[in-house]
């Protein structure tokens, strides 16, 4: 559904940005004793609005964390940095994608940060299996969408 936009390989920016993500995970563990999984943090925040089965009860810092996430690009733009972004435009596609990402991370107890960064750092076997599964599903999905129907 998206048109392939070539992006520049940015090893150093990505490694550095990744280190910041890791630092945040360490902050959340050291300060609150929790896993910095964005799906789980979001679930805890959503539970402030509607009842969510299995949602964590410490909602205060989770809501503040999400506000911090949203503030980050605004801060960079205020500092005069451009924030590069190409978001797929298909409304139906993005609605399906959002539903799958939300439902999948709730069912699988984690996302790229919870299972990926935090789980792998804890050497969790469950998280390793989850990461391999969602990576494989992602590779296959993009292959089918971009190359599967006689596309590029």
């Amino acid at each position, binding site marked *: 559904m998206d048109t392939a936009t070539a992006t520049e390989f940015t090893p150093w920016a990505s490694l550095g940005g*990744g280190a*910041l993500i890791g630092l945040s995970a360490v902050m959340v563990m050291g300060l609150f004793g929790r896993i910095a999984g964005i799906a789980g943090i979001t679930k805890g925040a959503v539970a402030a609005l*509607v009842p969510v089965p299995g949602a964590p009860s410490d909602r205060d810092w989770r809501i503040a964390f999400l506000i911090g996430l949203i503030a*980050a690009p605004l801060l960079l733009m205020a500092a005069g940095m451009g924030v590069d972004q190409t978001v797929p435009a298909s409304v139906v596609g993005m609605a399906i994608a959002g539903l799958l990402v939300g439902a999948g991370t709730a069912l*699988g107890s984690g996302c790229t940060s919870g299972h990926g960064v935090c789980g792998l750092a804890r050497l969790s076997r469950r998280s390793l299996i989850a990461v391999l599964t969602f990576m494989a599903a992602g590779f296959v999905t993009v292959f089918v969408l971009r190359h599967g129907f006689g596309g590029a």
Partner: protein
Amino acid sequence: MRLALGFLSGLVFGLGLVLSGMSNPAKVLNFLDLAGTWDPSLAFVMAGATVTAFIGYRLVWRRGAPVVGSSFDLPRATRVDRPLIAGAALFGIGWGIGGFCPGPAWTALPLLAPGTLVFVPAMLAGLWLGSNAARLPAFQPKGASR
């Protein structure tokens, strides 16, 4: 205090996502496009984040308890079960369609791209649906864990 520290943690995470390029779905989708416009950046993000967390976790665990929390609360589940696999597979498909996982979707929100404005509410609805689906009998094998 908890709110300020929560905000700061989220801000650092968000700065990491934007600076690493991961708030841009095009970069994520290109990582997943091995056969096309492949961009390996995401692997470097994961490496930088995981190594930092691996070392940092071991440092903070030396303290008996977190600074503003009561105890370290780590996932206790160890079994690889059906919800884990099914959930991760569904997540991966959605990730491959939209190029967003939950963190980047939040950082993309203030840029107000139409795709993001559709994705985020759908993700919240999905989180609610998935949390309820996790209670279905099909996902409750013997000794099931959260």
